[in-house]
Protein backbone atom coordinates (compact mmCIF):
# COMPACT_ATOMS: atom_id res chain seq x y z
CA UNK A 1 0.00 0.00 0.00
CA UNK A 2 2.97 2.24 0.69
CA UNK A 3 6.44 1.69 -0.68
CA UNK A 4 9.41 3.88 0.28
CA UNK A 5 12.88 3.42 -1.16
CA UNK A 6 16.09 5.11 -0.04
CA UNK A 7 14.19 7.83 1.78
CA UNK A 8 16.25 10.33 3.72
CA UNK A 9 15.53 13.69 5.20
CA UNK A 10 17.91 16.50 6.15
CA UNK A 11 17.30 19.66 8.17
CA UNK A 12 20.29 21.73 7.15
CA UNK A 13 23.36 19.80 8.23
CA UNK A 14 21.37 17.48 10.49
CA UNK A 15 20.21 14.20 8.96
CA UNK A 16 16.95 13.22 10.67
CA UNK A 17 16.37 10.14 8.54
CA UNK A 18 19.04 8.13 6.76
CA UNK A 19 18.37 6.10 3.62
CA UNK A 20 15.37 4.07 4.66
CA UNK A 21 13.24 1.47 2.89
CA UNK A 22 9.74 0.85 4.13
CA UNK A 23 6.87 -1.30 2.87
CA UNK A 24 3.33 -1.46 4.18
CA UNK A 25 1.02 -4.29 3.19
CA UNK A 26 -2.76 -4.73 3.43
CA UNK A 27 -4.06 -5.52 6.93
CA UNK A 28 -0.79 -4.59 8.63
CA UNK A 29 -0.57 -2.72 11.92
CA UNK A 30 2.98 -1.39 12.29
CA UNK A 31 4.43 0.33 15.38
CA UNK A 32 7.33 2.75 15.09
CA UNK A 33 9.35 2.93 18.27
CA UNK A 34 12.52 4.60 19.38
CA UNK A 35 13.85 7.29 21.69
CA UNK A 36 13.13 11.00 21.22
CA UNK A 37 14.74 12.29 18.02
CA UNK A 38 14.99 8.80 16.55
CA UNK A 39 13.22 9.89 13.33
CA UNK A 40 9.73 8.43 13.93
CA UNK A 41 7.87 11.71 13.22
CA UNK A 42 10.05 12.46 10.20
CA UNK A 43 9.45 9.00 8.71
CA UNK A 44 5.67 9.28 9.25
CA UNK A 45 5.58 12.82 7.75
CA UNK A 46 7.54 11.69 4.71
CA UNK A 47 5.33 8.62 4.27
CA UNK A 48 2.25 10.88 4.56
CA UNK A 49 3.53 13.33 1.93
CA UNK A 50 3.51 16.18 4.43
CA UNK A 51 7.28 16.45 4.16
CA UNK A 52 9.30 16.09 0.99
CA UNK A 53 12.18 13.63 1.33
CA UNK A 54 15.64 15.01 0.68
CA UNK A 55 16.32 11.83 -1.31
CA UNK A 56 14.47 8.67 -2.24
CA UNK A 57 10.90 7.99 -3.34
CA UNK A 58 7.60 7.29 -1.62
CA UNK A 59 4.79 5.55 -3.47
CA UNK A 60 1.29 5.80 -1.96
CA UNK A 61 -1.14 3.53 -3.80
CA UNK A 62 -4.27 4.22 -1.71
CA UNK A 63 -5.88 7.19 0.09
CA UNK A 64 -3.90 7.94 3.21
CA UNK A 65 -4.94 9.66 6.43
CA UNK A 66 -2.41 11.40 8.68
CA UNK A 67 -2.52 12.58 12.27
CA UNK A 68 0.65 14.47 13.18
CA UNK A 69 2.06 14.43 16.69
CA UNK A 70 1.04 18.05 17.27
CA UNK A 71 -2.48 18.75 15.94
CA UNK A 72 -2.45 20.49 12.55
CA UNK A 73 -5.68 22.46 12.42
CA UNK A 74 -7.07 25.98 12.19
CA UNK A 75 -7.24 27.16 15.78
CA UNK A 76 -9.67 30.01 15.00
CA UNK A 77 -12.19 27.64 13.42
CA UNK A 78 -14.52 25.38 15.36
CA UNK A 79 -14.07 21.59 15.09
CA UNK A 80 -17.06 21.38 12.73
CA UNK A 81 -15.65 24.14 10.51
CA UNK A 82 -12.25 22.44 10.46
CA UNK A 83 -13.75 19.12 9.44
CA UNK A 84 -15.97 20.75 6.79
CA UNK A 85 -13.12 22.72 5.29
CA UNK A 86 -10.66 19.82 5.06
CA UNK A 87 -13.38 17.53 3.75
CA UNK A 88 -14.28 19.99 1.00
CA UNK A 89 -10.61 20.50 0.13
CA UNK A 90 -10.21 16.74 -0.15
CA UNK A 91 -13.45 16.40 -2.09
CA UNK A 92 -14.71 14.02 0.59
CA UNK A 93 -17.99 14.02 2.50
CA UNK A 94 -17.91 15.85 5.80
CA UNK A 95 -18.17 13.90 9.04
CA UNK A 96 -19.91 14.55 12.31
CA UNK A 97 -17.63 15.43 15.18
CA UNK A 98 -18.64 15.21 18.79
CA UNK A 99 -16.76 18.25 20.09
CA UNK A 100 -17.81 21.65 21.51
CA UNK A 101 -18.74 24.33 18.95
CA UNK A 102 -16.05 26.82 19.80
CA UNK A 103 -12.70 27.74 18.24
CA UNK A 104 -10.20 24.90 18.36
CA UNK A 105 -7.78 27.13 20.28
CA UNK A 106 -10.22 27.04 23.20
CA UNK A 107 -10.45 23.23 23.31
CA UNK A 108 -8.55 21.08 25.77
CA UNK A 109 -5.42 19.27 24.62
CA UNK A 110 -7.33 15.98 24.49
CA UNK A 111 -10.17 17.52 22.49
CA UNK A 112 -7.71 18.98 20.01
CA UNK A 113 -6.13 15.57 19.63
CA UNK A 114 -9.54 14.05 18.94
CA UNK A 115 -10.11 16.66 16.24
CA UNK A 116 -6.64 15.90 14.86
CA UNK A 117 -7.58 12.23 14.61
CA UNK A 118 -11.00 13.02 13.11
CA UNK A 119 -9.24 14.89 10.29
CA UNK A 120 -7.06 11.82 9.67
CA UNK A 121 -10.16 9.68 9.17
CA UNK A 122 -11.70 12.07 6.58
CA UNK A 123 -12.28 10.62 3.12
CA UNK A 124 -12.28 7.01 4.30
CA UNK A 125 -8.54 6.40 3.97
CA UNK A 126 -7.22 2.85 3.47
CA UNK A 127 -3.99 3.69 5.27
CA UNK A 128 -3.60 5.65 8.50
CA UNK A 129 -0.33 7.21 9.62
CA UNK A 130 -0.69 8.18 13.28
CA UNK A 131 2.00 9.93 15.30
CA UNK A 132 1.55 9.13 19.01
CA UNK A 133 -2.24 9.05 18.51
CA UNK A 134 -3.21 8.22 22.09
CA UNK A 135 -1.27 11.06 23.68
CA UNK A 136 -3.67 13.20 25.75
CA UNK A 137 -6.62 10.86 25.14
CA UNK A 138 -8.57 9.42 28.04
CA UNK A 139 -8.97 5.63 28.39
CA UNK A 140 -12.39 5.51 26.72
CA UNK A 141 -11.19 7.48 23.70
CA UNK A 142 -8.09 5.29 23.45
CA UNK A 143 -10.28 2.23 23.39
CA UNK A 144 -12.48 3.71 20.65
CA UNK A 145 -9.41 4.62 18.61
CA UNK A 146 -7.92 1.12 18.81
CA UNK A 147 -11.28 -0.34 17.82
CA UNK A 148 -11.33 1.88 14.71
CA UNK A 149 -7.74 0.92 13.91
CA UNK A 150 -8.48 -2.77 14.29
CA UNK A 151 -11.58 -2.45 12.11
CA UNK A 152 -9.61 -0.75 9.34
CA UNK A 153 -6.93 -3.44 9.39
CA UNK A 154 -9.58 -6.12 9.40
CA UNK A 155 -11.12 -4.55 6.26
CA UNK A 156 -7.79 -4.78 4.45
CA UNK A 157 -6.47 -1.35 5.34
CA UNK A 158 -3.21 -0.69 7.15
CA UNK A 159 -2.02 1.50 9.99
CA UNK A 160 1.41 2.77 11.01
CA UNK A 161 1.66 4.44 14.40
CA UNK A 162 4.48 5.90 16.42
CA UNK A 163 4.44 5.38 20.14
CA UNK A 164 6.51 5.69 23.28
CA UNK A 165 4.30 3.21 25.15
CA UNK A 166 5.50 -0.39 25.32
CA UNK A 167 1.99 -1.81 25.82
CA UNK A 168 0.80 -0.23 22.58
CA UNK A 169 3.50 -2.01 20.58
CA UNK A 170 1.93 -5.30 21.66
CA UNK A 171 -1.06 -4.49 19.44
CA UNK A 172 1.21 -4.25 16.38
CA UNK A 173 1.83 -6.99 13.82
CA UNK A 174 5.27 -5.54 13.25
CA UNK A 175 7.50 -3.22 15.27
CA UNK A 176 10.01 -0.98 13.51
CA UNK A 177 12.78 0.27 15.76
CA UNK A 178 14.37 3.59 14.83
CA UNK A 179 17.53 5.07 16.32
CA UNK A 180 19.41 8.15 15.18
CA UNK A 181 17.49 8.21 11.93
CA UNK A 182 18.32 4.61 11.11
CA UNK A 183 15.94 1.64 11.02
CA UNK A 184 17.40 -1.09 13.21
Amino acid at each position, binding site marked *: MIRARGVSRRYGAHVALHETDFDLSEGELVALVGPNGAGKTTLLSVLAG*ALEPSAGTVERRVPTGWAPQRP*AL*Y*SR*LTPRENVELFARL*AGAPSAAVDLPER*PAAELSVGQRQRLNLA*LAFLGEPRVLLLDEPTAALDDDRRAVLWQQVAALCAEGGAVVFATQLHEETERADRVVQLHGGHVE
Partner: protein
Amino acid sequence: MRRTALLLRKDLRVLRRSPLLLAVLVSYPLLIALLLALVAGYANAKPRVAFVDNDNLPEKVEIGGRTFHVERTIRRVSDDVVLVPLERSEAERQLRNGKVVAIVRVPAGFVAQLRAMQRSPQLELETTRGLLASRVTQQMQALVYSLNRELQDAFIAANLRYVDLILHGGKGTFLGRRFDVLGLERAESRVRDPEVREFIEVAQLALDQTDDALEATANPIELRTNTAGGRTWALSAQVQAYALALVTTFLAAVLAGAALAAERDERVLQRLARGLASLGEVLASKVALAALVAAVLGLGVALAFGVAVEAAGVEGGEPWSRMPALVPALLLAGAVAGAFGALVATLAREARSATLVAVLVVLPIVFLGIVPREAAPAAGWVSDVLPFAHEVRLFDALLYELDPWRTVLVEAGWLLAIGTVLVAAARTLMRRLTA
Protein backbone atom coordinates in the same frame (compact mmCIF):
# COMPACT_ATOMS: atom_id res chain seq x y z
CA MET B 1 -9.57 27.93 -8.03
CA ARG B 2 -12.16 26.14 -5.88
CA ARG B 3 -9.53 25.39 -3.25
CA THR B 4 -8.28 28.98 -3.32
CA ALA B 5 -11.84 30.18 -2.79
CA LEU B 6 -12.29 27.74 0.12
CA LEU B 7 -9.12 28.96 1.79
CA LEU B 8 -10.06 32.59 1.14
CA ARG B 9 -13.45 32.02 2.74
CA LYS B 10 -11.73 30.45 5.72
CA ASP B 11 -9.36 33.44 6.03
CA LEU B 12 -12.25 35.91 5.89
CA ARG B 13 -14.07 33.94 8.57
CA VAL B 14 -10.97 34.00 10.79
CA LEU B 15 -10.59 37.72 10.15
CA ARG B 16 -14.21 38.33 11.11
CA ARG B 17 -13.46 36.63 14.42
CA SER B 18 -10.59 39.02 15.10
CA PRO B 19 -12.31 42.43 15.27
CA LEU B 20 -9.59 43.90 17.46
CA LEU B 21 -6.89 42.92 14.98
CA LEU B 22 -8.94 44.37 12.15
CA ALA B 23 -9.51 47.61 14.07
CA VAL B 24 -5.79 47.94 14.76
CA LEU B 25 -4.90 47.15 11.16
CA VAL B 26 -7.27 49.85 9.92
CA SER B 27 -6.61 52.50 12.55
CA TYR B 28 -2.82 52.16 12.59
CA PRO B 29 -2.25 53.20 8.96
CA LEU B 30 -4.85 55.97 9.33
CA LEU B 31 -2.92 57.20 12.35
CA ILE B 32 0.29 57.09 10.31
CA ALA B 33 -1.47 58.98 7.50
CA LEU B 34 -2.58 61.63 9.99
CA LEU B 35 0.95 61.90 11.38
CA LEU B 36 2.30 62.24 7.86
CA ALA B 37 -0.22 64.99 7.25
CA LEU B 38 0.90 66.69 10.47
CA VAL B 39 4.51 66.41 9.34
CA ALA B 40 3.47 67.89 6.01
CA GLY B 41 1.74 70.63 7.97
CA TYR B 42 4.91 71.21 9.96
CA ALA B 43 6.82 71.47 6.71
CA ASN B 44 4.52 74.38 5.91
CA ALA B 45 5.18 75.98 9.30
CA LYS B 46 7.15 79.20 9.48
CA PRO B 47 10.90 78.71 9.74
CA ARG B 48 12.78 80.77 12.36
CA VAL B 49 15.06 83.38 10.85
CA ALA B 50 17.41 85.56 12.88
CA PHE B 51 17.23 89.30 12.21
CA VAL B 52 20.46 91.16 12.93
CA ASP B 53 20.13 94.93 12.72
CA ASN B 54 23.59 96.49 12.45
CA ASP B 55 22.16 99.82 11.27
CA ASN B 56 19.82 100.53 14.18
CA LEU B 57 16.88 100.90 11.87
CA PRO B 58 14.61 103.77 12.85
CA GLU B 59 10.88 103.31 13.26
CA LYS B 60 10.26 105.20 10.05
CA VAL B 61 12.42 105.79 6.99
CA GLU B 62 11.58 108.53 4.49
CA ILE B 63 12.73 107.81 0.98
CA GLY B 64 11.87 109.86 -2.06
CA GLY B 65 9.23 111.67 -0.07
CA ARG B 66 7.55 108.41 0.96
CA THR B 67 7.51 107.08 4.51
CA PHE B 68 8.35 103.42 5.19
CA HIS B 69 7.40 101.88 8.52
CA VAL B 70 10.13 99.42 9.47
CA GLU B 71 7.96 97.66 12.05
CA ARG B 72 5.18 97.10 9.51
CA THR B 73 7.64 95.70 6.97
CA ILE B 74 9.02 93.26 9.52
CA ARG B 75 5.51 92.19 10.43
CA ARG B 76 4.79 91.49 6.76
CA VAL B 77 7.81 89.23 6.56
CA SER B 78 6.53 87.42 9.62
CA ASP B 79 3.61 86.11 7.57
CA ASP B 80 6.09 83.68 5.99
CA VAL B 81 8.89 83.31 8.52
CA VAL B 82 9.35 83.95 12.23
CA LEU B 83 11.80 86.82 12.33
CA VAL B 84 13.73 86.78 15.59
CA PRO B 85 15.75 89.93 16.41
CA LEU B 86 19.16 88.75 17.69
CA GLU B 87 22.66 90.02 18.26
CA ARG B 88 25.10 88.94 15.59
CA SER B 89 27.02 86.43 17.73
CA GLU B 90 23.85 84.85 19.12
CA ALA B 91 22.37 84.62 15.64
CA GLU B 92 25.47 82.84 14.37
CA ARG B 93 25.39 80.46 17.33
CA GLN B 94 21.74 79.64 16.70
CA LEU B 95 22.41 79.13 13.00
CA ARG B 96 25.13 76.62 13.85
CA ASN B 97 22.92 74.62 16.24
CA GLY B 98 19.94 74.74 13.92
CA LYS B 99 17.62 76.88 16.05
CA VAL B 100 17.35 79.32 13.17
CA VAL B 101 17.59 78.31 9.52
CA ALA B 102 18.93 81.67 8.28
CA ILE B 103 20.25 85.08 9.30
CA VAL B 104 19.11 88.29 7.68
CA ARG B 105 21.62 91.08 8.35
CA VAL B 106 20.98 94.77 7.85
CA PRO B 107 24.50 96.21 7.42
CA ALA B 108 25.55 99.55 8.89
CA GLY B 109 24.75 102.47 6.56
CA PHE B 110 21.88 100.63 4.92
CA VAL B 111 19.29 103.39 5.44
CA ALA B 112 21.72 106.15 4.53
CA GLN B 113 22.48 104.44 1.19
CA LEU B 114 18.79 103.92 0.59
CA ARG B 115 18.03 107.57 1.24
CA ALA B 116 20.84 108.73 -1.02
CA MET B 117 19.26 106.82 -3.93
CA GLN B 118 22.65 106.52 -5.62
CA ARG B 119 23.70 102.93 -4.98
CA SER B 120 21.67 99.86 -4.09
CA PRO B 121 22.26 98.93 -0.46
CA GLN B 122 22.56 95.22 0.30
CA LEU B 123 20.64 93.01 2.72
CA GLU B 124 22.73 89.99 3.68
CA LEU B 125 21.17 86.52 3.92
CA GLU B 126 23.06 83.61 5.39
CA THR B 127 21.42 80.17 5.31
CA THR B 128 22.17 76.60 6.33
CA ARG B 129 22.28 73.71 3.87
CA GLY B 130 19.01 72.21 5.13
CA LEU B 131 15.88 71.68 3.07
CA LEU B 132 14.17 74.70 4.65
CA ALA B 133 16.98 77.02 3.56
CA SER B 134 15.79 77.11 -0.03
CA ARG B 135 12.32 78.07 1.18
CA VAL B 136 13.73 80.87 3.31
CA THR B 137 15.84 82.10 0.40
CA GLN B 138 12.77 82.17 -1.80
CA GLN B 139 10.79 84.02 0.84
CA MET B 140 13.53 86.57 1.38
CA GLN B 141 13.84 87.04 -2.38
CA ALA B 142 10.10 87.61 -2.50
CA LEU B 143 10.38 90.14 0.33
CA VAL B 144 13.22 92.03 -1.37
CA TYR B 145 11.23 91.95 -4.60
CA SER B 146 8.20 93.48 -2.90
CA LEU B 147 10.33 96.07 -1.06
CA ASN B 148 11.98 96.95 -4.35
CA ARG B 149 8.55 97.45 -5.85
CA GLU B 150 7.63 99.94 -3.16
CA LEU B 151 11.00 101.65 -3.36
CA GLN B 152 10.70 101.82 -7.12
CA ASP B 153 7.42 103.62 -6.72
CA ALA B 154 9.04 106.05 -4.31
CA PHE B 155 12.04 106.56 -6.58
CA ILE B 156 9.83 107.03 -9.62
CA ALA B 157 7.72 109.56 -7.72
CA ALA B 158 10.89 111.42 -6.77
CA ASN B 159 12.19 111.32 -10.35
CA LEU B 160 8.88 112.56 -11.63
CA ARG B 161 9.05 115.46 -9.24
CA TYR B 162 12.39 116.37 -10.86
CA VAL B 163 10.81 116.08 -14.30
CA ASP B 164 8.02 118.31 -13.07
CA LEU B 165 10.62 120.82 -11.93
CA ILE B 166 12.26 120.73 -15.36
CA LEU B 167 8.90 121.29 -17.01
CA HIS B 168 7.36 123.88 -14.77
CA GLY B 169 10.29 125.16 -12.71
CA GLY B 170 10.45 125.73 -8.96
CA LYS B 171 12.60 124.95 -5.92
CA GLY B 172 14.09 121.52 -5.31
CA THR B 173 16.82 119.56 -3.51
CA PHE B 174 19.29 117.08 -4.98
CA LEU B 175 22.06 115.34 -3.12
CA GLY B 176 21.50 117.78 -0.25
CA ARG B 177 21.83 120.87 -2.42
CA ARG B 178 18.91 123.25 -2.79
CA PHE B 179 18.36 124.86 -6.18
CA ASP B 180 15.86 127.01 -8.10
CA VAL B 181 14.90 125.84 -11.57
CA LEU B 182 13.49 128.11 -14.29
CA GLY B 183 11.58 125.31 -16.03
CA LEU B 184 10.92 124.78 -19.73
CA GLU B 185 7.59 126.61 -19.66
CA ARG B 186 9.10 129.83 -18.41
CA ALA B 187 12.22 129.30 -20.52
CA GLU B 188 10.10 129.07 -23.68
CA SER B 189 8.62 132.54 -23.11
CA ARG B 190 12.09 134.02 -22.71
CA VAL B 191 13.69 132.46 -25.77
CA ARG B 192 13.24 134.11 -29.17
CA ASP B 193 15.18 131.70 -31.38
CA PRO B 194 12.46 129.68 -33.20
CA GLU B 195 14.59 126.52 -33.33
CA VAL B 196 15.24 126.63 -29.61
CA ARG B 197 11.55 127.34 -28.96
CA GLU B 198 10.64 124.32 -31.12
CA PHE B 199 13.12 122.18 -29.18
CA ILE B 200 11.58 123.35 -25.90
CA GLU B 201 8.08 122.54 -27.18
CA VAL B 202 9.09 119.04 -28.24
CA ALA B 203 10.94 118.50 -24.94
CA GLN B 204 7.80 119.56 -23.04
CA LEU B 205 5.66 117.10 -24.97
CA ALA B 206 8.17 114.32 -24.39
CA LEU B 207 8.56 115.01 -20.71
CA ASP B 208 4.75 115.06 -20.36
CA GLN B 209 4.81 111.39 -21.37
CA THR B 210 7.57 110.52 -18.89
CA ASP B 211 5.15 109.65 -16.13
CA ASP B 212 3.55 106.63 -17.83
CA ALA B 213 6.74 105.62 -19.60
CA LEU B 214 8.73 105.53 -16.38
CA GLU B 215 6.05 103.44 -14.67
CA ALA B 216 5.94 101.05 -17.60
CA THR B 217 9.72 100.71 -17.76
CA ALA B 218 9.92 99.96 -14.05
CA ASN B 219 7.22 97.27 -14.25
CA PRO B 220 7.22 95.69 -17.71
CA ILE B 221 5.13 92.85 -16.30
CA GLU B 222 3.05 93.04 -13.20
CA LEU B 223 1.95 90.00 -11.27
CA ARG B 224 -1.41 90.27 -9.63
CA THR B 225 -1.91 87.60 -6.98
CA ASN B 226 -5.30 86.35 -5.88
CA THR B 227 -5.69 83.88 -3.05
CA ALA B 228 -8.52 81.52 -3.98
CA GLY B 229 -10.31 79.17 -1.58
CA GLY B 230 -8.85 75.66 -1.66
CA ARG B 231 -8.58 72.50 0.37
CA THR B 232 -6.94 72.46 3.68
CA TRP B 233 -3.93 70.16 3.89
CA ALA B 234 -5.97 67.58 5.79
CA LEU B 235 -8.32 67.14 2.86
CA SER B 236 -5.75 67.67 0.16
CA ALA B 237 -5.58 65.22 -2.72
CA GLN B 238 -2.07 64.27 -1.66
CA VAL B 239 -3.06 63.35 1.89
CA GLN B 240 -6.00 61.31 0.60
CA ALA B 241 -3.79 59.43 -1.84
CA TYR B 242 -1.27 58.79 0.96
CA ALA B 243 -4.01 57.58 3.31
CA LEU B 244 -5.38 55.17 0.70
CA ALA B 245 -1.95 53.84 -0.21
CA LEU B 246 -1.00 53.50 3.45
CA VAL B 247 -4.15 51.63 4.40
CA THR B 248 -3.78 49.38 1.37
CA THR B 249 -0.08 48.66 1.74
CA PHE B 250 -0.01 48.30 5.47
CA LEU B 251 -3.18 46.33 5.87
CA ALA B 252 -2.67 44.01 2.92
CA ALA B 253 0.98 43.27 3.63
CA VAL B 254 0.51 42.60 7.33
CA LEU B 255 -2.69 40.63 6.80
CA ALA B 256 -1.36 38.37 4.07
CA GLY B 257 1.94 37.87 5.89
CA ALA B 258 0.28 37.07 9.21
CA ALA B 259 -2.30 34.74 7.60
CA LEU B 260 0.35 32.71 5.80
CA ALA B 261 2.69 32.60 8.78
CA ALA B 262 -0.20 31.57 11.03
CA GLU B 263 -0.93 28.64 8.75
CA ARG B 264 2.64 27.51 9.18
CA ASP B 265 2.48 28.05 12.95
CA GLU B 266 -0.64 25.90 13.12
CA ARG B 267 1.17 23.26 11.02
CA VAL B 268 -1.74 23.28 8.60
CA LEU B 269 0.48 23.91 5.59
CA GLN B 270 1.89 20.40 5.89
CA ARG B 271 -1.61 18.99 5.94
CA LEU B 272 -2.56 21.08 2.90
CA ALA B 273 0.65 20.04 1.13
CA ARG B 274 -0.61 16.43 1.13
CA GLY B 275 -2.57 17.18 -2.05
CA LEU B 276 -5.35 19.19 -0.44
CA ALA B 277 -4.10 22.49 -1.85
CA SER B 278 -0.94 23.38 -3.73
CA LEU B 279 1.41 26.04 -2.39
CA GLY B 280 0.38 28.19 -5.34
CA GLU B 281 -3.27 27.91 -4.30
CA VAL B 282 -2.41 28.78 -0.71
CA LEU B 283 -0.43 31.82 -1.89
CA ALA B 284 -3.27 32.86 -4.21
CA SER B 285 -5.73 32.73 -1.31
CA LYS B 286 -3.53 35.10 0.74
CA VAL B 287 -3.09 37.52 -2.16
CA ALA B 288 -6.85 37.41 -2.79
CA LEU B 289 -7.53 38.01 0.92
CA ALA B 290 -5.24 41.04 0.91
CA ALA B 291 -6.79 42.41 -2.29
CA LEU B 292 -10.35 41.95 -1.09
CA VAL B 293 -9.84 43.47 2.35
CA ALA B 294 -7.78 46.35 0.93
CA ALA B 295 -10.54 47.10 -1.58
CA VAL B 296 -13.30 47.10 1.01
CA LEU B 297 -11.44 49.18 3.59
CA GLY B 298 -9.78 51.44 1.00
CA LEU B 299 -13.17 52.19 -0.47
CA GLY B 300 -14.44 52.95 3.03
CA VAL B 301 -11.58 55.39 3.57
CA ALA B 302 -12.20 57.02 0.17
CA LEU B 303 -15.90 57.36 0.95
CA ALA B 304 -15.12 58.89 4.35
CA PHE B 305 -12.80 61.43 2.71
CA GLY B 306 -15.44 62.13 0.05
CA VAL B 307 -18.04 62.85 2.72
CA ALA B 308 -15.58 65.10 4.58
CA VAL B 309 -14.77 66.96 1.37
CA GLU B 310 -18.49 67.48 0.66
CA ALA B 311 -19.19 68.52 4.23
CA ALA B 312 -16.34 71.02 4.15
CA GLY B 313 -17.73 72.40 0.89
CA VAL B 314 -14.39 72.27 -0.90
CA GLU B 315 -14.03 71.92 -4.64
CA GLY B 316 -11.48 70.61 -7.08
CA GLY B 317 -11.71 66.86 -6.70
CA GLU B 318 -13.64 64.01 -8.21
CA PRO B 319 -14.67 62.18 -5.06
CA TRP B 320 -17.76 60.40 -6.38
CA SER B 321 -17.57 59.85 -10.13
CA ARG B 322 -14.18 58.13 -9.84
CA MET B 323 -15.13 55.74 -7.04
CA PRO B 324 -15.94 52.80 -9.36
CA ALA B 325 -12.52 53.13 -11.01
CA LEU B 326 -10.94 53.12 -7.57
CA VAL B 327 -12.11 49.55 -6.85
CA PRO B 328 -9.86 47.74 -9.38
CA ALA B 329 -6.98 50.01 -8.37
CA LEU B 330 -7.47 49.08 -4.72
CA LEU B 331 -7.70 45.39 -5.63
CA LEU B 332 -4.45 45.63 -7.60
CA ALA B 333 -2.64 47.59 -4.90
CA GLY B 334 -3.89 45.20 -2.21
CA ALA B 335 -2.82 42.17 -4.19
CA VAL B 336 0.69 43.55 -4.71
CA ALA B 337 1.03 44.44 -1.03
CA GLY B 338 -0.38 41.00 -0.17
CA ALA B 339 2.27 39.33 -2.31
CA PHE B 340 4.86 41.40 -0.48
CA GLY B 341 3.44 40.31 2.90
CA ALA B 342 3.45 36.67 1.79
CA LEU B 343 7.09 37.03 0.76
CA VAL B 344 7.93 38.40 4.20
CA ALA B 345 6.06 35.47 5.80
CA THR B 346 8.12 32.96 3.85
CA LEU B 347 11.29 34.54 5.22
CA ALA B 348 10.14 34.88 8.83
CA ARG B 349 10.23 31.95 11.22
CA GLU B 350 6.76 32.36 12.73
CA ALA B 351 3.66 34.56 12.69
CA ARG B 352 4.78 37.10 15.26
CA SER B 353 8.10 37.62 13.50
CA ALA B 354 6.31 37.84 10.15
CA THR B 355 3.95 40.53 11.45
CA LEU B 356 6.76 42.47 13.09
CA VAL B 357 8.99 42.23 10.03
CA ALA B 358 6.10 43.25 7.77
CA VAL B 359 5.51 46.37 9.89
CA LEU B 360 9.21 47.16 10.11
CA VAL B 361 9.68 46.79 6.37
CA VAL B 362 6.49 48.57 5.30
CA LEU B 363 7.27 51.74 7.26
CA PRO B 364 10.57 52.55 5.50
CA ILE B 365 8.92 51.74 2.17
CA VAL B 366 6.21 54.25 2.98
CA PHE B 367 8.69 56.92 4.04
CA LEU B 368 10.82 56.30 0.97
CA GLY B 369 7.69 56.85 -1.10
CA ILE B 370 7.06 60.30 0.35
CA VAL B 371 10.62 61.62 0.05
CA PRO B 372 10.51 64.15 -2.82
CA ARG B 373 12.60 62.91 -5.75
CA GLU B 374 14.26 66.35 -5.99
CA ALA B 375 15.40 66.08 -2.36
CA ALA B 376 16.95 62.61 -2.66
CA PRO B 377 17.09 61.09 -6.17
CA ALA B 378 18.33 57.76 -4.78
CA ALA B 379 15.18 57.45 -2.65
CA GLY B 380 13.15 57.93 -5.81
CA TRP B 381 14.98 55.15 -7.63
CA VAL B 382 14.54 52.72 -4.75
CA SER B 383 10.92 53.72 -4.40
CA ASP B 384 10.35 52.99 -8.10
CA VAL B 385 10.87 49.27 -7.53
CA LEU B 386 8.60 49.24 -4.47
CA PRO B 387 4.82 49.47 -4.60
CA PHE B 388 3.98 52.39 -2.30
CA ALA B 389 4.94 55.39 -4.46
CA HIS B 390 3.16 53.86 -7.46
CA GLU B 391 0.04 53.33 -5.37
CA VAL B 392 0.10 56.98 -4.25
CA ARG B 393 0.43 58.21 -7.83
CA LEU B 394 -2.25 55.77 -9.02
CA PHE B 395 -4.80 56.87 -6.39
CA ASP B 396 -3.89 60.53 -6.80
CA ALA B 397 -4.40 60.37 -10.56
CA LEU B 398 -7.58 58.32 -10.33
CA LEU B 399 -9.26 60.61 -7.84
CA TYR B 400 -8.05 64.06 -8.77
CA GLU B 401 -6.56 64.34 -12.25
CA LEU B 402 -8.77 65.58 -15.04
CA ASP B 403 -7.23 63.17 -17.53
CA PRO B 404 -5.81 60.39 -15.37
CA TRP B 405 -5.68 57.44 -17.75
CA ARG B 406 -2.10 57.70 -18.94
CA THR B 407 -0.81 57.92 -15.37
CA VAL B 408 -3.17 55.14 -14.33
CA LEU B 409 -1.88 52.83 -17.07
CA VAL B 410 1.76 53.56 -16.28
CA GLU B 411 1.37 53.10 -12.52
CA ALA B 412 -0.85 50.04 -12.87
CA GLY B 413 1.78 48.58 -15.19
CA TRP B 414 4.46 49.20 -12.57
CA LEU B 415 2.33 47.59 -9.88
CA LEU B 416 1.61 44.57 -12.08
CA ALA B 417 5.31 44.12 -12.78
CA ILE B 418 6.29 44.51 -9.13
CA GLY B 419 3.46 42.19 -8.07
CA THR B 420 4.53 39.53 -10.56
CA VAL B 421 8.09 39.57 -9.23
CA LEU B 422 6.87 39.43 -5.62
CA VAL B 423 4.48 36.54 -6.30
CA ALA B 424 7.21 34.59 -8.11
CA ALA B 425 9.66 35.17 -5.26
CA ALA B 426 7.07 34.24 -2.62
CA ARG B 427 6.07 31.11 -4.54
CA THR B 428 9.70 30.01 -4.77
CA LEU B 429 10.40 30.64 -1.11
CA MET B 430 7.17 29.03 0.08
CA ARG B 431 8.78 25.64 -0.14
CA ARG B 432 10.68 26.68 2.98
CA LEU B 433 7.39 26.73 4.88
CA THR B 434 6.81 23.01 4.45
CA ALA B 435 10.47 22.12 4.78
